[in-house]
């Protein structure tokens, strides 16, 4: 899922081949888990079908590696929407939150505003869980606590990152 938005982010900068996109993706998000070419080409195919990107140039010969893509206006809208919207607070968000922050930085958007919005969404969910605990039986309260501690861990990461955005911007845009 985040692969598609990462590709849109890279294509917003300039037109690229699948090969360059894989390099760019691995450099920012690969960390021990490089993305497969197959996934890049499949994602490009879907994005093209949905009108988010289009063929910019086709070099002589056959095969997906000869295609150079560009982002469409719809693609930019879709990327922008995703990057400005906080995620619904749920478990296992780390890859998505990280991807949004980095892509907001590499595409020159306001990553701080995104992180603040995400903080608001997380805190709202924590408020609901805290209210749920009031007067609840212990089992319910402990289950709510489980979710609260996880959301709090996300928020600590969000604050940590919020405090280091300038350094992170330098690192990911150089």
């Amino acid at each position, binding site marked *: 899922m985040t692969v598609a938005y990462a590709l849109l982010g890279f294509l917003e900068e300039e037109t690229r081949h699948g090969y360059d996109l894989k390099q760019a993706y691995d450099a920012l998000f690969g960390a021990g888990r490089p993305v497969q070419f197959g996934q890049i080409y499949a994602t490009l195919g879907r994005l093209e079908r949905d009108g988010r990107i289009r063929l910019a140039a086709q070099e002589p010969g056959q095969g997906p590696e000869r295609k150079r893509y560009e982002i469409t206006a719809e693609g930019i809208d879709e990327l922008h929407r995703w990057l400005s919207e906080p995620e619904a607070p749920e478990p296992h968000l780390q890859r998505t939150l990280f991807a949004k922050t980095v892509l907001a930085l590499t595409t020159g958007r306001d990553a701080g505003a995104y992180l*603040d919005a995400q903080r608001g969404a997380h*805190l709202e969910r924590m408020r609901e869980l805290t209210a749920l605990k009031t007067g609840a039986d212990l089992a319910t309260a402990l289950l709510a606590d489980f979710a609260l501690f996880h959301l*709090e861990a996300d928020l*600590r990461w969000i*604050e940590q990152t919020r405090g280091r955005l300038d350094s992170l911007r330098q690192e990911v845009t150089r």
Partner: protein
Amino acid sequence: MNDGIIDAKGLVKDFGTTKALRGVTLTIRGGEMVAIAGPSGAGKSTLLYCLSGILQPDWGTVTFAGRRLETLGEADRAALRRREFGFVFQFGQLVSELRAVDNVALPLVIDGVRRVEATHRALDWLERLGAADVARETPDELSGGEVQRVAIARALVTGPRVVFADEPTGALDSIAGDEVMTVLTEHARAQGITLVVVTHEPRVAAYMHREIVVRDGTVASREAVR
């Protein structure tokens, strides 16, 4: 908008060359529970002290229930703090020589309430906060959570309209912290008290209606009044 119990406009506060507050404007409504969050050194405590008249801002105004704090003399501001505000801090707030009940009764005694009456009301509040059994102990005999219950009783005993708390759970583990926040918000709600809590813990902020985030001496984000 000017329907707040507390209205702060353009607060600026420097400590030497450190700019602790760089122009903070906010409104807190009567009965609201507000968290003030933000990184270390952001100016949260300074803001709380300015809102509660402990510190005078270099610039800007604080209005409490229509009264401009900076127009009051030090004695009037002290009286206002004693009668209308309650305070809870992270630690170091109880008088170590006094028993818990006498600590709670202290603000009443200072305000001229007879000792018997003051002790009676102090005991009543300790009981409501689940700390009746430690009434006769001195602070060094109490756990961190008990100290905070006593501190909350002392903050509430005068019937304040606003309670200001600076990291009230900062010295507690998460179970004691939850208990303290539960009794604090429960009684604030029951008495219609406005609550302003500085905290860097999201789990504590989640007890409040909304959060104001301070970064680098300014309000970085605030949630809508609800």
